[in-house]
């Protein structure tokens, strides 16, 4: 049995998945001034915020997550009260921003934190099985792997793979204190890239079995496989061999060849170390196998959405499959030397042809945890 993606719902600084994709096609960047109080003192001046509200309002991450999960289930025609539905949520910081805001509030901070509000069970009745994975920036990819496992093992009729992250004050302070100068915009794969910025984001995709009953239901694409690996080298520096193993794991799991890849939605964080390592791994595993994929990435447009990043990439990949358009890498003007010979989409959108090819999406996290997902048109 194989798995399909029935629906996908996304929320970024650029809006819904549809709006986000259109904005990225248009080359727009969602970065703006960091709205946290005393942002300047943090040595972080810019960020990719969702909406216009106070970034320290309580339970924003939960609100976004519920919105995406509920929308994805609705679009997939799934009723959790009638079907076996599980949810796997990937996140780096969960509601840490709320915990911090709560603790610093002179009134609320004296009361115990309402832990029951961390769970979204009440907002999505019937989802009885919820697992939270905290695999840093590849959490969403690991969630997607678990979702496919649960479907192929027939443990559930539908699984929501979701991811969410908001910005916490402590995370911003840490980022500000390990960077010599503030970054204004993420510029993936650019020779003059200056580092990463956080993006607020949430995403949810519904994974269902590919069987006869699914034929008449909503379908966005076929979920081929997610390859997983651990660098076992360094906590923060990426490792080309580790990334390559996640890629080869993905292809071997589904028995397909890297030569079939037509486009890559890259991890592309715009940091000094990630982008060259990702280029080297793609060259060795994908280009060397005879593929010459278009390479794009969204973090220049929506920031690094951390726990949601892999699923934001998945949404972009599914829209590439359905529209045949590959958006440009927002923020990329002059590709890095390590990317020579790779087809980065710069400035204008490109055509995804032929449409039967595989779209690969990458997500790598601290701890050396890598997740590479492959999808194709169903």
């Amino acid at each position, binding site marked *: 049995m194989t798995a399909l993606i029935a629906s996908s719902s996304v929320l970024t600084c650029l809006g819904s998945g549809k709006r986000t994709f259109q904005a990225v096609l248009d080359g727009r960047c969602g970065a703006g001034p960091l709205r946290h109080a005393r942002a300047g003192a943090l040595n972080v001046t810019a960020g990719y915020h969702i909406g216009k509200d106070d970034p320290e309002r309580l339970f924003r991450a939960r609100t976004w997550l519920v919105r995406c999960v509920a929308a994805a289930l609705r679009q997939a025609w799934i009723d959790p009260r009638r079907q076996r539905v599980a949810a796997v949520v990937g996140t780096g910081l969960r509601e840490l921003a709320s915990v911090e805001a709560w603790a610093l509030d002179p009134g609320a901070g004296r009361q*115990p934190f309402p832990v029951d509000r961390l769970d979204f069970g009440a907002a999505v009745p019937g989802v009885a*099985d919820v697992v939270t*994975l*905290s695999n840093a920036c590849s959490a969403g990819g690991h969630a997607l792997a678990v979702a496919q496992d649960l479907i192929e*093992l027939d443990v559930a009729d539908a699984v929501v793979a979701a991811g969410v992250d908001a910005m916490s004050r402590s995370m911003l302070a840490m980022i500000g*204190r390990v960077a010599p100068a503030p970054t204004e915009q993420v510029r993936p794969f650019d020779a003059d890239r200056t580092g990463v910025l956080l993006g607020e984001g949430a995403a949810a995709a519904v994974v269902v079995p590919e069987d006869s009953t699914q034929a008449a239901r909503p379908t966005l694409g076929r979920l081929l496989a997610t390859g997983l*690996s651990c660098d076992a080298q360094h906590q923060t520096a990426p490792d080309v061999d580790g990334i390559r193993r996640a890629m080869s794991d993905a292809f071997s799991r589904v028995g397909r060849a890297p030569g079939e890849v037509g486009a890559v939605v890259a991890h592309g964080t715009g940091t000094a170390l990630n982008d060259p390592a990702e280029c080297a791994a793609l060259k060795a595993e994908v280009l060397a196998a005879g593929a010459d994929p278009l390479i794009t990435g969204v973090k220049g447009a929506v920031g690094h959405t951390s726990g949601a990043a892999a699923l934001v990439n998945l949404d972009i990949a599914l829209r590439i499959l359905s529209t045949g358009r590959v958006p440009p890498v927002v923020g990329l003007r002059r590709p890095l030397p390590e990317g020579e010979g790779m087809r980065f989409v710069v400035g204008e959108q490109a055509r995804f042809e032929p449409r039967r090819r595989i779209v690969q999406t990458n997500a790598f*996290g601290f701890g050396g945890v890598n997740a590479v997902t492959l999808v194709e048109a169903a």
Partner: protein
Amino acid sequence: MTAAVVTGWSAVSAAGIGVPALVGRMAVAAAGSGAAGAELGRSWDGDPLPQPRGHALPGFSVREQLGRKGTSSYDRGTALAVVACRDALAEAGIEVDDATRARIGVVLGTTVGSFKSTSDFSRETLVQPRPYLVNPVLFPNTVMNCAAGQVAIRLGLQGVNATVAGSQQAFLASLRYATMAIGRGYADVMLTGAVEEFSPHRAWAAELAGSNRNVPVGEAAAVMVLARMEIPVWAGRHRDAEILSVATGYGLGGDAAALTGCVAVALRRAGVQASDVTTLVTGEDSEEDRRETGPAAAALGHEPQRLLVKRSLGECDAASGALALAVLLALHRDGKRDGELSLLTSAGTDGAVSAAIVRGWGRDGAYRE
């Protein structure tokens, strides 16, 4: 049905380091002592403690265990996890080499990673003089999956590497993740455990939340070496336990029916008779605390002998379930309980519940293929 086999295990806790320390401690606990925890004094690493007692291992030294090289940036939880994983591999008799390392994965349960590392790092960003720069080497310790990553680096384990956040549920959720990772071919062996370090931060959190009334705060890293049923030759020849099933669920507002249902699912998946379950291992902290025993007994139709691990080893939060299984296997070590079935449960304050059915064996005891 068997989901996976335990070919070795180890633990670091207030009882000490390794299997013999835990086996010895259980003999002492059976005699009815040790429940109050060790005398830790008024402070810990220079920070005041709310209570002078706790189930910690104050003499634990990462340098003594692992040497100086590569360990200077470890936080306590990472060090505990690395030592427990190293010892668990040794207990299983697994040699990690280039032929096997990509087939060995790691999954560890946590609450929030190292609460102390995150707090200390955040505090540094506020109290450092200009230009406010903090030690970037300590940054990875603030990430929740730090311990699992360092285990992989130290022991050279390149298989799937995951961290499951779930506090009291963390271990059983990790166990489920591991059995699935093995069943789905991501790895042949999964180091599966959970870690929670002792720190003034956790001690104060428990004090302010009032959760330390029955048992003091503890610390532990406990790790099982899980292998698929057809154990590869290199993955160890012992069979310390069989994980027959794991189930997880959720009940709004701590609904007792959720755990009852979860236990029923675990029994069905394991394919065993409820009447054959002889031991119930819960996260309860006193005889009077029946939050898990009640719903579990309702599913079983009887009340097995209870094993309350927290009473002798403290409140270890995310590591509770892993330490409980380690204690159960320590009790199995002498072979007198060979083949007995146990039910492990946990229930969190947020409504999450989980259950597992385990069959334990003494080392090289009565188990025969």
